[in-house]
């Protein structure tokens, strides 16, 4: 082990991911390499094809194929390779099936949004606002900027607070304060988003009067929703950083705060980035709180501290809920706004991964 964990890990990874299992696990002769595919193909043709021929839907055919394939593989492997290998193969099939099942709604949702949203995915959509636009035409330039500004402010406020809180909970907070924070974070994960908006509004109305609407208020509402997600996911990842790493750092005389910032956080940075992205994704598509806190306007407003701003979810929501006559241009705009929102989060996700990679420890 002392020859370097990095190498050992790598080997283990490739081994786990692709290679056949160590031969000692299979005292009996293993199935030939291609046989799972062969069985799958046969099942698909016989069961799936048969179901389709009998006039049933594709969904049923695929489901039946999967079930029969799993049963067949288990049976064959059990006879040829023994029960343990058979179980292993069954779980492999189940896990793979879980992944494919998870992909199905993704494909369906994305296909729906793209099919409906592509109609207005044009230059005008990204350069025009809705000021002076009646019926067809217009765009969501103002809403794209509004969403970027409001979400950026929310992220800038939430991520440091969330990260530091998680660090406190994992590394320091053992006392009453830690328990209180944990308690409230737990409760807050279930705040209905609209309540966060009401809270932000009530807070700002205290200082600025009931007519107040500003982008910053929306950011605050989003923070309420975002911070718990950041804390919970970060906390979980910091917790599983092996104590050996911390102890090794302490043993070298590294102060605790540097241990945390230089060892603990970098070790889990990929996961933290993933959690942060989830948190952003959670709030960037939020409609209800922005409805209350930020409202909607037809023109561009770049000042988050003054007046209403348009945001993509609200823009999309109102286009869908209150279309004019004819409906189509409104619905098209609603779908395109949703498409833009998804692309936006994808880009953020990618960015988070790059950032994570830059900070992550090099394994070799």
């Amino acid at each position: 082990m002392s020859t370097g964990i990095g190498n050992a890990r790598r080997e283990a990874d490739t081994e786990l991911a692709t290679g056949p299992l160590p031969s000692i696990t299979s005292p009996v002769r293993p199935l030939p390499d291609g046989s799972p595919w062969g069985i799958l193909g046969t099942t698909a043709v016989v069961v799936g094809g048969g179901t389709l021929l009998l006039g049933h839907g594709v969904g049923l055919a695929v489901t039946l194929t999967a079930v029969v394939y799993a049963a067949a593989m288990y049976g064959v492997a059990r006879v040829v390779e023994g029960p343990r290998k058979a179980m292993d193969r069954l779980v492999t099939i189940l896990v793979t099936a879980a992944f494919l099942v998870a992909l199905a709604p993704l494909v369906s949702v994305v296909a729906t949004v793209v099919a409906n949203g592509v109609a207005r995915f044009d230059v005008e959509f990204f350069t025009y606002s809705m000021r002076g636009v009646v019926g067809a035409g217009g765009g969501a330039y103002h809403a794209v900027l509004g969403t970027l500004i409001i979400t950026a402010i929310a992220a800038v406020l939430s991520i440091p607070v969330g990260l530091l809180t998680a660090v406190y909970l994992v590394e320091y907070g053992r006392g009453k304060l830690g328990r209180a924070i944990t308690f409230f974070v737990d409760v807050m994960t279930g705040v209905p988003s609209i309540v966060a908006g009401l809270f932000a509004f009530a807070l700002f109305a205290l200082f600025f009067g009931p007519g107040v609407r500003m982008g910053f208020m929306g950011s605050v509402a989003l923070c309420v929703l975002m911070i718990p997600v950041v804390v919970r996911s970060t906390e979980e990842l910091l917790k599983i950083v092996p104590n050996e790493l911390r102890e090794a750092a302490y043993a070298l005389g590294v102060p605790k705060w540097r241990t945390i910032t230089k060892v603990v956080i970098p070790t889990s940075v990929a996961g933290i980035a993933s959690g942060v992205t989830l948190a952003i994704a959670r709030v960037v598509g939020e409609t209800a709180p922005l409805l209350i806190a930020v409202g909607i306007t037809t023109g561009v407003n770049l000042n988050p501290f003054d007046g209403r701003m348009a945001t993509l979810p609200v823009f999309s929501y109102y286009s869908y809920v209150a279309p004019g006559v004819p409906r189509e241009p409104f619905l098209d705009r609603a779908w395109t706004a949703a498409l833009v929102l998804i692309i936006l989060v994808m880009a953020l996700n990618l960015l988070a991964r790059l950032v994570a990679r830059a900070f992550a420890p090099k394994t070799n």
Partner: protein
Amino acid sequence: MKNQRHVARARAAAVGVAAGVLLAGCGAANESVPAGGAAPSAGGTALSGTISGAGASSQQAAMQAWIAGFTGSNPDATVNYDPAGSGAGRTQFLSGGVAFAGSDAYLKVDELTEAQRRCGGDVVEVPAYVSPIAVVYNLQGVTDLQLSPATVAGIFLGKITEWNAPEIAADNPGKTLPDQAVIPVHRSDDSGTTQNFTDYLNKAAPDIWTAKATGTWPVQGGEAAQGTSGVIGAVQGGNGTVGYADESQAGSLGKALIKVGDAYTGPTAEAAANVLAESTRVEGRGDSSFAFDLNRTTTAAGTYPIVLVSYQIACSKYPDAAQAALVKGFLTYTTSADGQQAAAKAAGSAPLSDELRTQITPAVTGITAGA
């Protein structure tokens, strides 16, 4: 573990990207040029400033047209409208949060006193958006479905469960109706549309529909969907479905003709606008308040009694002169012939009759500045 320590020095330079916000000098392509197409505002001189309103989402589509028309002739003015809902709009108006409100119902008595306190005087309350509510249905092979009030009530109560039930057949002599289940679809959200629809059922078929008018659907059963779009979607998605929704959004769905007096009338704009002429103005609310109790049981030919009347609510005077001028200008435009036509075109609403407009114009043009 040596590796971990080397990491400390391995810094990535690419992080700053995250902070890069690309907001330098960007206005939307359409915002420098005023969008034309609207008549000049009442006074002739262009207004400037910003006012905000909030309220009924039913007015949203019309409001977009009004705002576009108004700011077209007053390029320096900005009007915002949050279609947050009538209740929210009234609440915000009462608290002084918005300059004007849109509401599917006129102010309640206690709200009116509060509004008068907020305004320091009379409240301006004018119908601005009138829209027929169609009974829409999706039933293959059946066109021009005719329904009497009692039948509509029976259907939405869940008492009439088959399309070939004797009640429906009696309303549609000579038509072949399918032997199919009736699936009534109603709004799941609190709405002015439901309020008006249940008010109609309660007044026009009091024996069958005993529940009072309410914004939330009062009976259990049937299918529920959110918003006009949701109801239309559910009616389109099912077979044998029937619902109620803003006529302009009905699209290709069938629209039932409703029995008024002895004739069956369809949900047209004119027939809807005629209802206001048949209705009585609520007294004792001040000269500038035009609240109507709609006459649902009218027997006059050519009227369609299932209508939604949405009001615009403002103060008769504002402390700020610029605000007063803007509200006055905007409301004058929305209730003008041009404004009503613009709304009819963009939202499919029924323009107010000239007679009614002559009555309410003084209330709107009387908005002044002063404490």
